[in-house]
């Protein structure tokens, strides 16, 4: 089982490098996008080492493509392993999705049908990745815009089976649960009640936007009240977890993100009403 890390953190973005390097910011960990640092050298890699000297760091990937029917990219795994060895991260995570097939890379988190065949393929890919990395991974539930129903199982049943088969843990993105529930008409509370709680090691909190017909996982807004309510609902069911605010676009001043993190801390300490 992946060790727990109770704490509150932020996704590290370029706009805040100086804040974190010049001052000791009150976060328990920082999460970085793995691919931004899977490079040979230069300033980005040096900054990550400096950050790591000051804070625990989680590596969060977007391009492993664990759902690819034609397997994983060995070059990618080798580069990620080198980064893992260098940084010694808290967690290594990626998404329950696919982005690459037969030499084509979409650079987007594309959805999977929750079928027995997909479960076999994703399990085999996670096994290979974990062997290559020498450690267990966290897998994040995605926001999806296509429902491949009828499927063999629900998303939470699929995640439960993945954890049992591969020993991976879960990165529970509460915003993604809300977005997918809204887009596909399922109950987010039922999802959060059914997900394997003992496997959750990290939580993402983020915002979304209303598209023409669907909710879009834009990560360019503050965490909305609807997502805070879901976080307050699921948190007491979980063991010690690392909670973080994930913002990828329209990056605000660090103080705004710290204010959101204070809400998360408040919910963890005293519940939704006290935080509000």
């Amino acid at each position: 089982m992946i060790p727990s890390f109770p704490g509150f953190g932020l996704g590290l973005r370029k706009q805040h490098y100086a804040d974190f390097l010049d001052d000791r910011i009150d976060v328990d960990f920082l999460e970085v996008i793995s691919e931004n640092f899977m490079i040979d050298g230069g300033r980005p890699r040096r900054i990550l080492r400096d950050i790591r000297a000051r804070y625990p760091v989680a590596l969060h990937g977007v391009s492993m493509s664990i759902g690819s029917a034609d397997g994983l990219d060995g070059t990618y795994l080798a580069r990620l392993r080198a980064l893992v060895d260098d940084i010694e991260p808290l967690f290594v995570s990626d998404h329950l999705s696919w982005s690459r097939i037969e030499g084509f890379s979409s650079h987007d988190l594309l959805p999977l049908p929750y079928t027995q065949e997909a479960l076999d393929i994703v399990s085999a890919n996670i096994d290979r990745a974990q062997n290559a990395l020498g450690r267990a991974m966290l897998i994040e539930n995605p926001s999806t815009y296509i429902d491949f129903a009828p499927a063999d199982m629900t998303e939470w049943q699929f995640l439960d089976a993945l954890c049992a088969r591969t020993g991976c843990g879960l990165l529970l993105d509460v915003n993604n649960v809300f977005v997918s529930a809204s887009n596909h008409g399922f109950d987010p509370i039922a999802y959060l009640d059914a997900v394997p709680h003992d496997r959750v090691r990290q939580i993402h909190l983020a915002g979304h936007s209303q598209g023409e017909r669907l909710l879009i996982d834009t990560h360019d807004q503050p965490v909305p009240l609807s997502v805070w309510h879901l976080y307050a609902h699921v948190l007491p069911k979980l063991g010690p977890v690392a909670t973080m605010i994930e913002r990828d676009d329209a990056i605000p001043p660090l103080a705004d993100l710290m204010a959101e993190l204070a809400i998360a801390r408040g919910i963890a300490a005293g519940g939704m009403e006290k935080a509000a």
Partner: protein
Amino acid sequence: MSLLALQRDMRDWLTQEDMAAAARIGVTAEPGLAVYQNNYRTQLVACLESSFQRTRDWIGEDMFLHAAVNHIDSVPPSSWTLDAYGRDFPATLARLHPADLEIAEIAAIELALEDLFVAADCVAVGVEDLADVDWDRAIVTFAPSIDLLHLETNGFAIWQALVDQKEPPEPRYLDKPEVALLWREGEQCRIRIVGDAELKALLNLRRGMTFGELCGDSALSLGDQAGAAVVGQWLGAWLSDQMIAAIN
């Protein structure tokens, strides 16, 4: 439908707007497919805009967007890293604008600088490391970040003016092609035009010529004294610019 067949259909929808592929994915999938296609194309355009800002400044937003869309339609992304997507963009620009080669050359400069920024680190040799060097037999190893770029137009001067926010010169073909030398001094990316003699010296040293052979070569061309002086100047510049990784 197998997972492989489904993924091929989604790829075909994203890259070619294959409606038959979309129909096989599902009749209710159209709104979601539109979201994924918009994400795909928007992200690639944003990647090119971020990597080629001076090129965009030079040709303007509309012409740049036209080139980006053409590139996305003709060159699907293949690497795990989005940073690699711009690798063939100078070639696309050269194809779209064959009479305006400076456009592709400005893009090539930006691409080379982006690669330089994340090139492998090395500890540069300093003057203090030279005490025990056997110069006749010495092999000079340059830093891994060093790159050379062949230029047929004044694209470098245009790029420099755009960086300095000055009025760029009119584009023109050079009387004689030039070579730009790119390297990283610490974390700073550097670029300068290199002369013929220094270029020849750099290439010879990279091919394994000893420093003694380089001095002999230079003496044949310029005479003993002038040859030694010019090689000394180059060595001094390469050392102070942190271009040398080892002298053995």
